[in-house]
């Protein structure tokens, strides 16, 4: 029997990368945001192939809402007559190249340091309980720190949006 999952993986990977390229290259910022949805859906598909259904559902739930809000902001903040030219190019090749290269190096180094081994046991039927145990047990402190960080970001955003001292 042919290996369906390998075929599906390459299909999903191709869709994800093509959609990600479209996000960067398209000139209409709303189209870019919509292709971002496709990118996230492709990643969710790969999670399903890895039997991490819970993670796939989280991916869909969070990023669907996030992209919707992103589009709203794109429409609100782009005060251009024509939205067709809202995601413009500029000519800062040098800075962009340095940043991208640095990120690539970090990703490659990070990948190299990790010893990737295939787990001998089959994936458990339900990984929800395992994720919950990890979050509230072993990784409770990083989890809480991340939550506090998000809270700080949110309070900061509200403060910035209000701007200066209140009127009364």
């Amino acid at each position, binding site marked *: 029997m042919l290996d369906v999952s390998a075929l599906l993986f390459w299909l999903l990977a191709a869709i994800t990368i093509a959609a990600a390229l479209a996000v960067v290259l398209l000139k209409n910022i709303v189209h870019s945001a919509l292709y971002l949805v496709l990118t996230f859906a492709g990643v969710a598909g790969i999670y399903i192939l890895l039997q991490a259904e819970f993670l796939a*559902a989280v991916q*869909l*739930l969070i990023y669907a*809402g996030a*992209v919707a809000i992103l589009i709203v902001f794109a429409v609100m903040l782009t005060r251009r007559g024509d939205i067709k030219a809202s995601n413009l190019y500029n000519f800062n090749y040098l800075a962009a190249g340095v940043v991208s290269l640095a990120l690539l190096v970090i990703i490659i180094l990070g990948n190299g340091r990790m010893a990737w081994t295939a787990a001998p046991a089959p994936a458990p039927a339900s990984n*929800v309980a395992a994720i919950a145990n990890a979050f509230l047990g072993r990784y409770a402190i990083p989890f809480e720190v991340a939550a506090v960080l998000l809270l700080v970001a949110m309070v900061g955003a509200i403060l910035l949006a209000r701007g200066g001292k209140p009127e009364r």
Partner: protein
Amino acid sequence: MTVEGIFTGIAAYLRGFLAGAPPWVVTLAMGVLYLIGVLAFIFLNALYLIYLERKISAYMQQRIGPNRLGPHGLLQSVADAVKLLGKEDIIPRGADRWVFIIAPILIFIPATMLYAVIPFGKGMVPADLNIGVFYFLAVASTTTIAILMGGWGSNNKYALLGSMRCVAQMVSYEIPLTFSILGVIMLAGSLQTSQIVAAQGKVWYILLQPLAFIIYFVAATAEVNRAPFDLVEGEQEIIAGPYIEYTGMRYALFYLSEYANLVSVSALAVTLFLGGWQGPWLPSWLWFLIKVYIMIFIFMWVRWTFPRIRIDHLLSFNWKVLLPLSLANILVTGVGIKIYQLLTLGRW
């Protein structure tokens, strides 16, 4: 074959028919069959619900409603559907062409996918995922993007206003909706819809989680954009919002998915709070249908009773009332479960 086992019997017969084929063929064929079954369920229900809605609204307003075509006007929806099929398909010149075309198709995909985890009867879940309820919420959340695409692609100020409201409303009401369901999940100890129904053999969760049920009902009304939370469409102010430029079949797809979503949130309410397919004497799938229609009737009753509320009231009601209440509900449920365990098992 008993009345109870009609549908499971058909499925078993078809499986037997395919017995010789390789397993992936069987899986694929059964998937297609389930899809056809779900689509038939959606179309029949939507057709009948449009008629039901018009009749109920008519009686609530002391009118008669559709009564010309067929006995008691029963064929009115069929005539309307045929009329919609024959309408001219108009794409505005200023529209964002592909976004405009894809949006009505895209909104129908999650509306159909939601039915995969609904237990229609005893052993009648199309795909009994172990993250069932969570899958439902995740798929349902993508509806926002389709409505936003329709509203933005139309290149019309009322459509854009409607889709902006849609994002504000649906993204915020998703939060109390999810939190209200958490109480039930804590009691059942599972996200699998079949297990949640099975756990309600003795007592329905509406009795243990009355507050969660009310929060779910309010948030679900907002999620399916029905009055008094129909600000996304708001015929009198923004003329059907995102759907303003759509005609013919494209408009019908939006309409259809709206009714499909009404049925699926009612079905989820039945699954989570009203004991699913459980009930005496009658076959399980009939019990399920009866309960779903009771829920739908309450949704319609509310729609034709309350006036629309303002967008800022809508959002502050969500953040200042529903969200704290749903959080409190989770806390009380957690403490309650622990006390119950202490009393019955004698340990924490």
